């Protein structure tokens, strides 16, 4: 209960985002499903911000090491995700015929 009332603002944000997400995907042609999934994959790489924060607040060697790995993995997700998506979409661009 306390958890909910303390974070009311965030909870409103969550609910709104759920609807925005649904609205955005609503009418996407199936050709774009794969790039879309890949793009969404890159966007959830935003988790990297959490790993940066957690590593930046760590004091012990153990946690720094785990944080270090977390930042690497998060970056892989972000960079890899966006680059792969771009490569997929590159193929859709208009070609000179």
């Amino acid at each position, binding site marked *: 209960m306390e958890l909910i009332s303390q974070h009311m603002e965030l909870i409103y944000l969550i609910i709104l985002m759920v*609807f925005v997400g649904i609205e955005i995907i609503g009418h996407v042609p199936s050709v*774009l499903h794969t790039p879309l999934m890949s793009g969404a*994959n890159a966007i959830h*790489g935003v988790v990297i911000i959490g790993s940066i*924060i957690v590593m*930046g607040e760590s004091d012990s060697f153990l946690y720094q090491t785990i944080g*270090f*790995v977390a930042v690497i993995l998060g970056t892989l997700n972000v960079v890899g995700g966006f680059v792969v998506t771009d490569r997929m979409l590159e193929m859709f661009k208009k070609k000179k015929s």
Partner: protein
Amino acid sequence: MQKHILEIIYLIASVTFIGGLKFLGHPSTARRGNLLAAFGMTLAIFGTLFLYQTDQGTSLKNLPFIFLALGIGTLLGFVAAKKVQMTAMPEMVSLFNGMGGACAMLISLIEFQHIHEKSPLIILAGLIIGSISFSGSIVAWGKLSGKIKDFNLKFQQYISILLLLVIVYFAYDVSCLDASTLTTSFYTLLALSLLYGVLFVFPIGGADMPVVISLLNSFTGVAAACGGFLYDNKVMLVGGILVGSAGTLLTIVMCNAMNRSLLNVLIGNFGGSAAASGSTGGSGIQGNIKELTASDAAILMKYAKKVVIVPGYGLAVAQAQHVVHELEMLLESEGIEVKYAIHPVAGRMPGHMNVLLAESNVSYDKLVEMEEINPEFTTTDVVLVVGANDVVNPAAKTDPSSPIYGMPILDVESAQHVIVNKRSMKAGYAGIENELFYHAKTSMLFGDAKKALTQLVSEIKALG
């Protein structure tokens, strides 16, 4: 002041995520959308690095190491994404998704030390969802790249449900913060969640893997959002929940394209049950297979007015996308109308065929989706099926006992001739026989797609 600038940066980044995802939904703006989201992400990352302040008002420590990790990750991610073959794209997406899940898992692992001060439920949610997404994605990656074989554990569904209950029990135990069992329970929970992810994906057939990847994708989104909740960080929350909800809907849309429910995909054991019914129902198909040579096929095609090519996973495996484009141009130069019929689930991912054919410069408007091409088959002279099977199986319309019954298919049998290129008579991914191959109009052109098509092209040229 610093704090406020960072808040605004996060706001801008959030808007780029929403806008980027919106743009990704349209072919003409998709690329811009991706770049927009990437820009927002870069902004958010650098903003965090330089402007973030802890609760005590200090800046982040360990910055050199963070930069080192960022550098390593960027280099590895960039090289991996650039080097991967177009056919291996689905497993790459799965792998990157797993990395994100692992990242969320590790964050929860570190935050465990603060479990008394922060909300234990959120830390646990991040841990459980992140781990499931991580191990599940790795299994999906292994399956798609052929490193892990399909495997059916007996009573697998019951074990999974039991495991889930045990996870809930331990999660409850940890959230009670009973000091004596806290640490053990927490790590048990980590191990169980990882195991659950493996068991979750293991029995699902390879053809359903895109659906699973999409689902795991939305899981990772939710795991990222947990981090947002933990740090009161709105950009993480927006990005995570956006992907969580969009990913879930995308999963459902994909299931609909196959005319199956999500539940059916998850517990249906597609491969397993299909093989069983295939051995009983499938053996009922009687008839002869007509085999034809490349030169026969060449003659058929050269004197056709309209040819429709149906690409499938076999085309991707054989890397035959360039040859098929060559064939298309050759036929066009003879004044023959050529189109590609794209089934929504052809290949291993929706849009897989489009990406592949676009790679070999096939013009976008030649790729026709199923609903539009189906009425055209009656006026088509020759249909060339390249490495596709289940998407042209008439059993989906005629045989209620078939596991793919109800899935919309391409009505290739209404064309004059059907030429099917396959490596062998082996069944498709669903593991069922295809009576199309025994149809009077159908001829089989056996061989690897690339070799067979190359031969076909030279035969047509030889006809001059």
